[in-house]
C-alpha cells in the first residue's frame, strides 16, 4: 500500500512537468527510493494525469512482479540509486535543453540562478539512449558528480532528496537554456557580471 502522501507528490510533479512543456503526453518518469525499494511510474501512464494505480513499487536490486509494470527506464533509475545518494529522480524531455545537447558536450549556464545552483551540466552520449544498461551506466556515472545531466538528444535526469528538489534542478536547467537561446537570438556581446566565472566550466 503506497502512502497517499507519496501519491500526491508524484501527481503534482507529474502534472507540473506536463504543464511546463517538459514532456509529451506519455513520456518522462519519476521515482523515489524507499530503503532497498523504489516507487516508479507505471509504464505507459500519462505523467500529467497520474492515478494512484499508476505507481509501482519494486526492488532496487531485486526483481519481483512489479518489474512487469514499471517504467521502461526502470534500469536507469535502479542504477542511479545504486551509485548515487539520490532519494528521488525526475526524468523528462526539456525541449530547449535537448536542443543545446545536440551541439555541446556540456551546458554552462550564463544566468545567475543556474550558474549559482548548477554551475554546469554535462551531456552524455549513448547510441541506444533509452532503457539500455549502457545508457543506465553512463547516466549514473555522470550523476555521481552532478545533480542533473543531459542525455544527448533524449532528455534530462535529475536527482534530489525529494521529487520537488529534482524538479527544481530540471526547471532551472530548462530556464537557463531558454535564456541562452534568447541571448543567442539577441546576438550582442556578453558582459560578464560574475566573479571567477572561468571556474564554472571546471566544476
Amino acid at each position, binding site marked *: 500500500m503506497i502512502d497517499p502522501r*507519496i501519491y500526491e507528490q508524484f501527481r503534482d510533479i507529474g502534472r507540473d512537468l506536463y504543464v511546463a512543456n517538459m514532456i509529451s503526453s506519455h513520456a518522462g518518469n519519476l521515482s523515489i527510493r*524507499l*530503503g532497498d525499494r523504489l516507487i516508479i511510474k507505471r509504464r505507459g501512464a500519462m505523467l500529467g494525469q497520474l492515478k494512484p494505480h499508476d505507481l509501482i513499487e519494486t526492488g532496487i536490486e531485486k526483481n519481483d512482479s512489479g518489474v512487469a509494470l514499471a517504467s521502461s527506464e526502470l534500469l536507469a533509475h535502479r542504477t542511479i540509486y545504486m*551509485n548515487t*545518494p539520490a*532519494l528521488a529522480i525526475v526524468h523528462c524531455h526539456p525541449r530547449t535543453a535537448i536542443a543545446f545537447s545536440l551541439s555541446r558536450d556540456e551546458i554552462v549556464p550564463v544566468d545567475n540562478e543556474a550558474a549559482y545552483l548548477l554551475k554546469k551540466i554535462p551531456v552524455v552520449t549513448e547510441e541506444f539512449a533509452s532503457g539500455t544498461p549502457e545508457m543506465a551506466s553512463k547516466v549514473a556515472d555522470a550523476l555521481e558528480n552532478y545533480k542533473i545531466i543531459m542525455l544527448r538528444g533524449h532528455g534530462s535526469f535529475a536527482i534530489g532528496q525529494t521529487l520537488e528538489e529534482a524538479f527544481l534542478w530540471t526547471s532551472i536547467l530548462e530556464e537557463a537554456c531558454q535564456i541562452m537561446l534568447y541571448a543567442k537570438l539577441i546576438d550582442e556581446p556578453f558582459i560578464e557580471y560574475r566573479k571567477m566565472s572561468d571556474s564554472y566550466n571546471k566544476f
Partner: protein
Amino acid sequence: MAGWSEKVLDIDLNTHTHKIYPLDMEMARLFIGGRGLGARLLWDMVGPEVDPLSPENVLIFTNGPLTGTGYQTSNRFSVTTKSPLTGTILDANSGGFWGMQFKKTGYDAMIVRGKSETPVWIEIKNGEVTFHDASELWGMRVFALTEKLGQNNNKRNVLCIGPAGENLSRIAAIMNDRERALARGGPGAVMGSKNLKAVVVEGRERPEIMDQEQFKFLLYEARKSLAQSPLTSQALPEFGTVVLMNIMNTVGALATRNHQQTQFEGAEAISGEELTEKYLVKNASCWACPIGCTRISKTEKVEGEGPEFESTWAFGAQCGIDDLPAIIEANTLCNDLGMDTISAGSTIACAMELSEKGYMDSDLRFGRADQLAPTLEAMAYRQDIGSDLTDGSLRLAMKYHHSELSMSAKGMEMPAYDPRGMQGQGLLYATSNRGGCHMRGNMVGPEVLGAPKLIDRFQVQGKSSFVILHQNTAAAIDSLVLCKFTNYGVAEEYFARVLSAVTGIKYATGDMIKVGERIWNLERLYNLREGFTRKDDTLPARLLNEAPTDGPSQGWVVNLEPMLKEYYRGRGWDENGVPTKKKLTELKLEAL
C-alpha cells in the same frame, strides 16, 4: 600528502613517553579523518573487555584534511573513545580554535593511552611533546585553568577537564577554548580517569592545498551560498541556535517536562528573540566561520558563551523553567564545571519527575529555577543528591526502579526535538550509534526547516531513506571535519569537491556519502561487538505509547517498527540489524 600531515602522535601516560609513527594512508583514504579515522583506530585498540574508565581505554583526538585550511568552518576536531555513559563507541566534536591549532602542530591524530600516576598536563609545541605536573591544577575549574595555561585564540589553545571530569561523572565533557565542548557521552570522565587535566597546543605548520584555484572558487561559491541562505546569514547570526525554540514549539515538537508534553507555555520567554533582546552582549565566531552563531550573553551574575538551543531547552522546557537568566547561569556553570548541558538538564528533569511522582525522596520540582545551580554543583562534585544524578538519567531512573522515565536512547539523553512530532527524528535517535543524539543526522532540516526541501514530518513510509542519507552525510562531514551548519547553506556536492581540491585525490559526491556509510557501518560493528542488539534500537516507552493530548502533534506516537524494518533493509543489514557480508564487502570492511 596535501590534506594530511601523515603523522600520528601516540602518548602513553603510564610512562610519560610518546611515539610518532606514519598515518596509514589507505586508512585515511577510506575513513578521511575526524570521526571516521577515530572509529577505525579505536576498532583495533579497544575491545569489549575494556572498561571505559580503565587505563586500557584510549582517547583519540583527530583533525581532518580540511582542518585549518580556511575553508568555511574548518576549525573542528573530534575525540573518539568508548563511552562511559553508554558503553557504545563515542565520538564528540567541537569548534572554536583548538582543532585548527592542533592541525598546525603537524599531527593528524593523537592517541592518549594508559593512566598517569599523578595528575599531568601535556603541552605540544611545534610538534614537541612535554609532560607537566598538574597536581596544583587538579581541582581547578575550566575558566580559571584555561586562562592560567595561556589561552590565546590564534596562537595557543587549551583543552581541559573541570571538576566533573576529575570526579568521573559519566556526563563530563572535555572543554576547549574555555567554553567549547566535546560534550556528549562522558569523554571528560575518560580523561579524568587517566589523570590528564589538560592538553595545550601551539603550532606553525600550514596545511598544503593542491589545487589553489579550485579551492578559492569553492570558497567563494560557499561564501555566496552561506550569505544567500536566510538561516546561515540572518537567523543564526542574529539569534544563535536558540532561534529554534519558537519554531520547535510551534510545530509541537519541543520536548517539555521530561517529554511529558510537546509544547512549552514558557517557550517565548526563553526564545532566541528574548535572548538577543535582553541578554546578548555580542555574537562571536569559531575560527574561519562566516556564520557567527556563538552568543556572548550576560546576566547580573555571569558573562559567557552561549547558551545554545539545546542547553536552553535542557535547563528550560525540559525542566519546565522559563527563567532565562537562570538558564544562562546554569549553562555557564556547566561549562565551568565541564559537564554536558543536554545530559545534565535532562537528568535533572528526570529527577524532577521521579520526585514529583514520589519515586525519589528529593525536593526537586519542575519549574524551580533556583534548584539548577546547586544541583549542578552537587553533580560535578558527586555530593548529596548529585551523586545519584551525575552518571546520567538512565542510571538514576534505574536506581529508583523507574527506568522508563529516563528520556534516553542507548543510555544517552535525547535533545530537544520530540520525535512524536517528527517521525524521522525518532528513527534517527533509535538507530544512532552513540545514543540519543541530534548530530548523527539532521532530520530537523527536511522535517521542519525545509532544508533542502520540506517533507511531511508525520510520513512513515520512505522516511528511513532520508534518515540513512542524513546519517551518512553527517558521518562524512564529521570526517572532514566541518560544522553541520554549513549543510544548511552549502550543497553536499561541495564537500567532495573541496576535499578533492585540497588533497588532489578525486572524490565524487557519491564517494563522500560512501565514506559516511562506511563509518556508520564500522560504528555499528563496534557496538555489535560490545553486545548491543536490535532491542537496543529503540526509544523510551513514553514516545512509543503515549500520544500528546493537544497541540500539532496530538495523537501521534513514534511509529518505529515499520520504519526500523525499512531502515535495516535500506542499510543492507539483516532483520536483526547486522550488516550483511555483501554490504561489508561493498564498503571494504570485510576484513573486520
